[in-house]
């Protein structure tokens, strides 16, 4: 018998993506096969030419808030607004917040700050803009905007940040740290990261092709996603609609290299094992994996190896796709956005293919989803995230009530 006090459920999902605000717009766009990656030139910074997925229509916050909030903060606030609205939730002010970002307020700062910081701060709004720099500011921005008084925690664990935030929030619910948690991640496009990944030669100049043998790298996108998490007991007590159950989660580290994954994907495979053990499920029970799938040569090979290892003994190959092929890699938001997409897949019974995947990595234990959207019942699905510094996070979601 499942203990409703120890069962974590999702009662709200908020999304801001290049498709617009809301899970519905994301779902409509992705199911139609629309790719949001666009070729830009001199857009994010002079001299950059390549693919990005940008949020074109972002309604402004009140003027005073724009002055205090970075674009990262704004995306997080909007995703939270969406999550609260669709969770039919009037009790969120006691919630805890775990909000992830790799960028924080770097969007508000330019290179001039390093040459003469004092002069930079004396520019109009300089002090205020720089105040949003710490990545922990995003959790505070959300908390202050909605006057939420529970525990707040900022998270930065490279590209797994958004998924880590969800796992830690679930931990906090199990410990009774708050009656409800708002957890997710936010990261916008920014010269800092685009320049950095470009310098690392990690960007595909064309739309990325995750898990293809001819993959050349990643594209960057922007967005935010926030889940409303609570125990099943709490959700039932307020008669909330349960969108999904978070059955298991795990966090591991490769302890291998600052930027490269362990070649065999052992850290991710361990992470999958830990999360399946927590969920009390086997590899045969998982119907779909929303992969990290950046499109970089090293990540995708290691990730395929991880699936081979973790799902060894499964009766049929594990269906896997990378939805970064639709709107790029949103860094600290990616894990949260992909959690939302995984929940969307469970609820709609629609498994999204990887776009532009024509010549998949040879991996017999994996069924690379490509071509048409696959329609099938999906009781259990997994979202996998990894990042620089060797971090891995896996979330296992299930449909309906536990």
């Amino acid at each position: 018998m499942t203990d409703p006090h120890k069962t974590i459920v999702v009662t709200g999902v908020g999304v801001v993506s290049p498709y617009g605000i809301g899970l519905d717009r994301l779902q409509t766009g992705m199911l139609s096969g629309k790719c949001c990656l666009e070729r830009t030139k001199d857009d994010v910074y002079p001299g950059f030419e390549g693919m990005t997925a940008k949020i074109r229509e972002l309604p402004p916050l009140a003027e005073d808030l724009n002055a205090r909030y970075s674009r990262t903060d704004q995306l997080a606030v909007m995703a939270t607004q969406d999550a609260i609205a669709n969770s039919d939730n009037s009790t969120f002010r006691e919630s805890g917040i775990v909000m992830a970002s790799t960028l924080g307020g770097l969007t508000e700062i330019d290179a001039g700050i390093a040459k003469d910081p004092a002069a930079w701060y004396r520019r109009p709004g300089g002090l205020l803009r720089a105040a949003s720099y710490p990545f922990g500011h995003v959790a505070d921005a959300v908390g202050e905007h909605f006057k939420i008084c529970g525990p707040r925690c900022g998270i930065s664990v490279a590209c797994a940040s958004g998924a880590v935030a969800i796992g830690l929030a679930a931990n906090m619910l199990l410990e009774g740290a708050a009656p409800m948690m708002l957890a997710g991640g936010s990261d916008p496009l920014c010269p800092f990261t685009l320049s950095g990944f470009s310098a690392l030669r990690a960007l595909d100049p064309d739309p990325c092709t995750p898990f293809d043998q001819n993959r050349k790298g990643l594209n960057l996108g922007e967005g935010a996603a926030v889940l409303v998490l609570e125990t099943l007991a709490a959700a039932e007590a307020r008669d909330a609609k349960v969108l999904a159950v978070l059955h298991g989660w795990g966090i591991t580290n490769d302890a291998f290299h600052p930027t490269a994954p362990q070649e065999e994907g052992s850290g991710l495979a361990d992470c999958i094992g830990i999360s399946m053990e927590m969920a009390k499920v086997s590899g045969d029970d998982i119907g779909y994996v929303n992969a990290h799938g950046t499109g970089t040569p090293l990540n995708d090979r290691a990730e395929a190896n991880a699936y081979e290892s973790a799902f060894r003994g499964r009766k049929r190959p594990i269906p896997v796709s990378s939805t970064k092929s639709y709107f790029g890699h949103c860094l600290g938001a990616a894990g949260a956005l992909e959690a939302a997409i995984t929940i969307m897949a469970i609820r709609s019974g629609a498994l999204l293919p990887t776009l532009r995947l024509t010549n998949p990595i040879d991996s017999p234990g994996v069924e690379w989803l490509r071509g048409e959207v696959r329609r099938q019942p999906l009781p259990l699905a997994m979202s996998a995230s990894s990042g620089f510094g060797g971090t891995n996070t896996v979330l296992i979601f299930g449909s309906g009530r536990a």
Partner: protein
Amino acid sequence: MTSSLPPVAITGIGSVSPYGPLAGTIPQNPIEPATLTNWKGNGERRAFLVPAFRAAEVVPGLKTRRLDRLSVWALVASSLALRDAGIDLNQVDRSRVAVVFATAFGCVELTEAFYLSAAANGWSGTDPITFPETLASAPASHVSMFHGLRGPNITVSNKYFAGESAMMQAAIMLRQRQADVGIVLAGDAVSRSMYSWYEEAGLLSQACYNSDPASEAEGFIPGEGVAALVMEPSEHIHARPDRRSYAVINSGRWAAGGQGAKIIREMLGGSVPSLTICSGNGAPCATSSTSALVREIGGDNPVILPQAFAQGLAGTGALFHLIAALSNRPVSGQAIFLATARDNGFAALLLELP
């Protein structure tokens, strides 16, 4: 945190601070701020700075080339804490060791360096080596890599309670049996842009510019360093009677607002702590709103005030305040480790001191 889960013991301490690299507790002698010498500017500026040291002399085999100071300090502090705890990692399942790092500003020195490369060469000419090391999570990643730790590895931040929230995240992972050992680290490095921000915002003490002690009335002096704690479930300690426990964490809560006093009273279950250890963010217990809460909760029992050198570490000074208190605690028994914020936020950990 609920009380139905096993309590967590602090079994090792390590630090890199203005006192230098140390295993175990820190000295009680007050320390003077040092003069900043590596930035051009008008007049003298002072901060509580970590003195230069050779990391490989403290931790044999440690290679720190290309790492920023924060990562080096995290590596050294974690090594010293493990040494202090008497943990031989060869005898431990390293996939069951978690690393939780708290930082307000992350790798701000390398972020400045990356910006400087952009200023000099344009965004198309930035340094690829520096970029990954600008991530706030880089120090924690280096700790996992150096020690071969494959358990959870996270980096957290919180405006007022970064250190406390890191301790609680680690305690939760231990209580939930997601790890057997937790290494909690917290710290920041003083950088030019950070110092200038405090300066322009008018937050600094006049003692930053003047060595006259009488000038310390308002503001704070920036500080730097990394503190590390090794945390283990108490039941592990009971099985190894030779192991020292500095303190046992029985429960903890933090929030951005609300009814702190009520929640802390619930944590205490009607008892009065024999000691209150104040953390703080530039607001000493004796002069802030914390004092009323301290009196309400602790009565006339002893109070340990925050350490001056760690006051300027934003939200990450908490571990230093705790280590300093554990270095010279006047009593044993139940203690509350307490911090408050201007907006009624609080963090409180209920400790049992042996």
